[in-house]
């Protein structure tokens, strides 16, 4: 809903920065976020909204950041691609493909040095595993048995490039991580419960010194790579493929499941949705009402004290 609201309002041209929405991929963030504790660390990529929110990141801070306001979580300096919320140990997201993977390993190292039972989790896409730094990072995490949770969201595309022009036929990303020496599994990225269970048990073992874990979750991005529209008209993916995944909408699948299992009623869901919409309206209002940073702010905070 957050993403869809952004999408709806993007064409007001008030959110003036590249924005990568995760509609269709919500389940991965949701499941992993549910497993992690507040003091666990998370890092993410250009497509970070879901990860940020699922870690408990401040919604108003995020929307204000996309609006470029002083009250944004990065005070307007970062935009959609550079989010942070230190209150919940969401340590940052950035737009260089693969760039945060070694940072996650570094946080893992710091946990080991400080002897806490935290986890360092890093989210990335299927293109990130093509960067050498991915491989170097996993190698080091395994070598030092660090508590790093690698979550690869395989949505089959990097911008408009399908996997087949980037990785050899028959490649299974999770097996690659395995060959480096990492405990590794794959799963259905649209099945929130299955992911929750898998990740839970991995994280339990990790908290007890079990070393790093890698998950590949297959899922699908609905909207265009960057921006608020749909882009199936470009022809880089088929309508059939898109429909196939759209039918497997992780949110409605999970809702149906919850209703069927009588965990929740349709009515309760509606109430939750209304609450979210209210929160969202407030967040957008907060963002719209907030001041822009003063132009001199551009030249501050280059160095830390």
């Amino acid at each position, binding site marked *: 809903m957050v993403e869809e609201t952004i999408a709806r309002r993007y064409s007001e041209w008030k959110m003036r*920065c590249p924005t990568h929405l995760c509609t269709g991929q919500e389940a991965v963030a949701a499941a992993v976020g549910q497993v992690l504790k507040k003091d666990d660390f998370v890092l993410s990529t250009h497509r970070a909204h879901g990860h940020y929110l699922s870690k408990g990141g401040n919604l108003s801070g995020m929307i204000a950041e996309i609006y470029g306001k002083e009250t944004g979580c990065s005070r307007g*300096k970062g935009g959609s691609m*550079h989010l942070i919320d230190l209150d919940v140990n969401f340590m940052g997201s950035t737009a260089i493909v693969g760039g945060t993977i070694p940072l996650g390993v570094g946080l893992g190292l710091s946990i080991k040095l400080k002897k806490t039972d935290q986890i360092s989790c890093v989210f990335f896409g299927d293109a990130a595993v093509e960067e050498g730094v991915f491989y170097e990072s996993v190698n080091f995490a395994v070598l030092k048995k660090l508590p790093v949770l690698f979550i690869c969201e395989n949505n089959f595309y990097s911008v*408009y490039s399908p996997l087949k022009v*980037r990785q050899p036929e028959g490649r299974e990303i999770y097996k690659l991580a395995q060959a480096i020496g990492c405990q590794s599994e794959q799963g259905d990225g649209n099945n929130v419960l299955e992911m929750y269970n898998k990740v839970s048990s991995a994280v339990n073992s990790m908290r007890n010194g079990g070393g790093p874990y890698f998950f590949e979750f297959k899922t699908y991005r609905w909207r265009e790579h960057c921006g608020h529209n749909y882009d199936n008209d470009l022809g880089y993916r088929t309508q059939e493929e898109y429909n196939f995944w759209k039918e497997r909408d992780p949110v409605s699948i999970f809702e149906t499941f919850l209703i069927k299992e009588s965990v929740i009623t349709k009515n309760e869901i509606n109430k939750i949705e209304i609450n979210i919409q209210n929160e969202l309206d407030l967040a957008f209002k907060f963002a719209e009402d907030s001041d822009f*940073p003063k132009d001199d702010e*551009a030249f501050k905070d280059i160095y830390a004290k």
Partner: protein
Amino acid sequence: MQNDKKRKLNYAQAINEAMFCAMEQDESVICFGLGVDDPKRIFGTTSGLKERFGPERVFDMPTSENAMTGVGIGASFNGIRPVMTHQRLDFFLLAMDQLVNNAAKWHYMFGGKTSVPIVIRLLIGRGWGQGPTHSQSLQSWFAHIPGLKVVMPATASDAKGLLLSSIFDNNPVIFIEHRWLHNLEGDVPAVDYRIPLGKAQRLRMGEDISIISNSYMTIEALHAIEVLLENGVNCDLIDLRTVSPIDWEMVYSSVKKTGRVLVLDTSVSTCSVASEIVARVSMECFNDLKCAPARLALDDCPTPTSSALTKKFYMGAEDIIVSVGKMLGKKIDISKISMQKAFPHDVPGDWFKGPF
């Protein structure tokens, strides 16, 4: 040829035409990079290439900037002329080892026995929240490395002529395109023409001050010069076209004539190409200088994202006018030019609909 001269293309189309022209005449020219054959075709600059030259010569690649740079270099040892493209210069930071330790040094460290004829196209940007990881200008890094050539065309016709020369040059060439130039139109002849690397171009003739510029800043300078002219100030505008090697002869002769120099650059200030020009001019034209040399480049600061923060961050025609005025001891009214720019400051023009 005369007819030709009146042919209008925009900068992106001019790049595209240079690619066609090069690939047509020499089958050792190949083109690769993320998205070169995707629906958007690198803002149209690689349109039609795959269809015309096939997937062996025009191909997408894994997100492996360092190795793929090495792949281009290695292929060039066997006579291939690769043109590699990155949608943002920032991504290319992953490949500095291959660029500097291999491409730049190879010819020299093997005693001149072999060479590396590769072109790397890098896009730099400005505005629309490109922010800290999508907008860096690093020409001074490349210019600092002996063995590399660095090209930064400002006009459509230069873009074509310089890209053709870059592709057929036997050295590694960094070819930097400013995103805000892609839609600018100019006269672009249809024929194969080459603009020599290392030669600057005088775009405006004047006696009062030399403005030394490159890439998009040249466009801002042209705007500024119009206003300055109305105010009785005549500028010599030298567009460097190639920032390594630099056409020192033209720079010095201009400064010797005017006795004043303002250097423009798209990058941050410290250790920039602008620094180099100010330094050399000060060393070589010391006795000709009538006042302190000046430069206009970005403050030493990463790029902010919010449009509120980029307003003061970037330099434009207004800043140029103010600087020139100061150097000549004249106060010039800039309200007119400020008004000219009706569109918001963070887009290059109406055609720009974000987010790239």
